[in-house]
C-alpha cells in the first residue's frame, strides 16, 4: 500500500479524483444550459442555484474532514506516505470553499457589497461560514514549500492547526442554517469529533521517546523530534 501511495502516478490520479465533484457539477450545468436553462431539471432540482450552493458547501466540509483524516489514517494503518496527499486535499477544501463563497457572492447577493456586509453581521450562520473561510485562506496561501521554510516548520505547523477551527466553524455554519432536520450536520460534527478525539488522545499520551527521555535525561526532552 505504501508503495502504491508513493508511486508517481497515484498523485495525479488522486488529483483527478478530487476534481470529480466539480466535473459532475459542470456536466450537469452544461446539460441544463443545453436544454434551455429553464424549467425543472432532475439533476439540478427545481432551484439550481440552491443546489449549487449546497453541493459546493457539502464538498467543502467533506474535503476538510478528508484532510483531517490523513494523520489518523497514517498512524492507525501504518501508511506514512499518505502525508504526500494532505496538502492537495486541503487545497481542494479551499477550492470548493471558494466556489461555495462565490456562489453566494454572485448568485445570491449579486455582488451587492452592502447587502453582504449586512448579512455577515446579522446572520450568525453566515458569520460562521465566513469565519470558516477566513481561517482556511491563510492556510491555502502558506501551503507552498517556500512558506514552510520562511515560517519554520514548527511555526508553520502551529498556523496550520487553524484547520481544526475552520472545520468546526464549517460544521456549526451548516448546523445553524438547516431548518429542523439536523442529521447531516450532526453526522459531519460526529466525524469531526472522532478525528479530534484521536488527536487529543495522541497529545495527552506522551510519545514513547519522550517518556524515555524523561526517565533517562529530562534535560534533553525538548530535543525530541
Amino acid at each position, binding site marked *: 500500500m505504501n508503495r502504491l501511495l508513493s508511486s508517481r502516478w497515484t498523485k495525479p490520479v488522486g488529483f483527478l479524483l478530487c476534481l470529480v465533484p466539480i466535473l459532475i457539477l459542470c456536466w450537469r450545468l452544461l446539460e441544463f444550459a443545453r436544454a434551455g436553462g*429553464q*424549467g*425543472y431539471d432532475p439533476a439540478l*432540482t*427545481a*432551484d439550481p442555484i440552491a443546489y449549487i450552493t449546497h453541493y459546493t458547501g457539502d464538498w467543502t466540509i467533506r474535503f476538510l474532514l478528508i484532510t483531517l483524516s490523513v494523520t489518523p489514517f497514517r498512524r492507525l494503518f501504518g501508511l506514512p506516505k499518505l502525508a504526500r496527499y494532505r496538502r492537495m486535499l486541503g487545497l481542494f477544501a479551499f477550492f470548493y470553499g471558494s466556489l461555495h463563497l462565490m456562489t453566494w457572492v454572485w448568485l445570491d447577493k*449579486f455582488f451587492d457589497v452592502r447587502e453582504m456586509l449586512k448579512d455577515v453581521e446579522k446572520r450568525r450562520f453566515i458569520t460562521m461560514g465566513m469565519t470558516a473561510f477566513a481561517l482556511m485562506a491563510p492556510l491555502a496561501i502558506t501551503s507552498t514549500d517556500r512558506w514552510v521554510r520562511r515560517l519554520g516548520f514548527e511555526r508553520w505547523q502551529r498556523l496550520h492547526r487553524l484547520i481544526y477551527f475552520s472545520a468546526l466553524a464549517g460544521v456549526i455554519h451548516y448546523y445553524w442554517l438547516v431548518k429542523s432536520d*439536523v442529521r447531516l450536520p450532526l453526522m459531519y460534527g460526529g466525524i469531526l469529533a472522532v478525528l479530534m478525539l484521536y488527536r487529543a488522545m495522541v497529545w495527552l499520551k506522551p510519545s514513547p521517546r519522550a517518556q524515555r527521555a524523561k526517565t533517562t535525561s529530562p534535560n534533553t526532552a525538548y530535543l525530541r523530534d
Partner: protein
Amino acid sequence: MVIRKKPDLQYSQVTPKQHYLNRRRFLAGSMALGALAAAPAARATTKLNGVAKSPFSTDEKPTPLDAITHYNNYYEFGTDKEDPSRNAQHFQTSPWQVKIDGEVAKPTTLDLDAIFKIAPLEERIYRHRCVEAWSMVIPWIGFPLNALLKQVQPTAKAKYVAFESYYDRKQMPQGAWGGIPFPYVEGLRLDEAMNPLALLAVGLYGDTLPNQDGAPIRLVVPWKYGFKNIKAIVKIRLVEKQPPTTWNIAAANEYGFYSNVNPEVDHPRWSQAKERRIGEFSKRNTIKFNGYGDQVASLYAGMDLRKNY
C-alpha cells in the same frame, strides 16, 4: 376518522377522465410553442373540466408542473425537497374524510364526494412565497374556504380556525426525521379564513392534487408564507382561542402565528426582502402580503406586524 382500506373512490370518478389534462401533450406543447404560449392552452383544457376562471388569478407565468411536483416541503415524507415526490407516491388519499367541528352549529364529516360538491371549482393562479425565500406561481383548483365555513355555521364563540393534517407513521416513516412534531397543525383567525382569497385546493394544473402537493385537500392562503398552507387536511375545528401551529411550536422566534409575507420583517436567520422565483436567475423584491395587500391589508389594521410576525 380516516379509514384506511383499498381505495374504492378513485379520482377518475370525481373528475371524468377525458377531462384530465394530458400532461405529456402539455409538456410537448410547451416545447413547441414556448412555455408562455402553452399556459393558456392548459387553462383551455381545464375549462372543459367545468372549472371556472377566477378574477383573483395572476397573469404571471405559472411555474412548470414538474417544478411544482419536485420541490416540496412536506416533512412527513422527508426533508429534502425531492423526497415527497418519491416517498408520497403510494400515499392513500382515497377514501378520505374531513371532520369539521368545534364552535359550529352544524358539525359534520365530509367524504371526498361531498367536498367536491361544496362549491363550484375555480382555478386560481396564485403566487406562492415560501418562508425560505423562494417563490412559484401555481394554478390551483379549489373553492373558497368560506364556502365550507358558511355551511357549518360558526357560532359567536368561534374566533379561530384550527387545521390538522393526516399523519400515519406507517405511510410516512420519513416523518420521524423531520424534526417537527406531527400531525402538522395550522390555524387562521376566523376573519382571515373568511377572506375570499383563502382557498381549499383540491387540484393544480387542471388535475387533482399530486400526493406530494397535499392531496387530496389542502389550504392555500397566498398572502402568507407557504408553511401556513397545511396539506392533506383531516380536521377543521372552529375554536375560541388561538390554536397552536407546528412551526411555531418548533421555533417560536422564527415562525409566528400570522406569518404574513413581509419584506420588512426578516426571518432571524435570513432576509425576507428578496425572493428567487423558481426558474429565474436573478432575485425579485418580495412584496408585502405577497402582492395581495389590496384584499387583505385591512385585516391587520392597527396591528404591529413586527410583533405579530
